[in-house]
């Protein structure tokens, strides 16, 4: 399991690298965020806590594919579509 506070995060739009940052630069380390949140809110197996992202974040349009790659964790692909192209 990689150290969540020392991971490079890269964002690709249509396979072009558009941003990169390290989780080292986030406001709170993962353990600190978990401690802060669980002080008032119970987290249970399966709950997901997002750690935040660097700004500015890249913009994209309908039709483009977003890839978020985190070293040691993998690459998540998602495609943006227009409302008109989605069945009601």
């Amino acid at each position, binding site marked *: 399991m990689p150290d969540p506070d020392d991971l490079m995060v890269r964002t690709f739009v249509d396979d072009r690298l558009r941003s990169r940052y390290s989780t080292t630069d986030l406001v709170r380390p993962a353990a600190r965020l978990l401690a*802060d949140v669980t002080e*008032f809110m119970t987290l249970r197996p399966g709950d997901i806590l997002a750690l935040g992202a660097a700004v500015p974040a890249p913009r994209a349009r309908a039709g483009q594919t977003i890839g978020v790659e985190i070293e040691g964790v993998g690459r998540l692909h998602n495609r943006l579509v227009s409302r008109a192209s989605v069945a*009601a």
Partner: protein
Amino acid sequence: MFLKGPGTLIGHRGRTRRPADVTFMHYECELAVVMGATARNVGRREALGHVAGYCIANDYAIRDYLENWYRPNLRVKNRDGATALGPWLVDAEDVPDVANLELRTFVNGTRTQLGNTRDLVTDVPGLIEYLSSFMTLHAGDVILTGTPEGIVNVNVGDHVVCEIDGLGSLHNTLASDADFGRVARHPGAS
């Protein structure tokens, strides 16, 4: 508008923790709309037909922790047991006019808040139309519709009763960190 997780809910006659290190923790008596059917892109004319019923919510908030008025953070609005819901579900057909219900809050028997659902900034059909335009609502989802003026700080030991015409009275008591087996935090502590 913002989302709340299920862990924040507590039922009728519950106890809610008031942290020692805050100066302003207040109730918020609100009409709660319980969805009875899937709603996606529903117009306001059809909106109420998707409602199972109504109940009362007390959406406690801690002003000291608030960082963004329009996007309240988890620490304000997702606290364990800090959103009272109840006392029971009233079927939609038993609420003939949801737009004309008086809301009242009492702290230790003294009325501190008074309002009416006719004064909602966005009415219930409008809320369902707005939300269902970008997020699918499902049966069991609950929409809290806002609170009138008259919110005041409450302290440990206070008994808070939120009433809405036709929906009963929702009771809650404020309890301390120690009552929850927690160590009190004090201002300035890391």
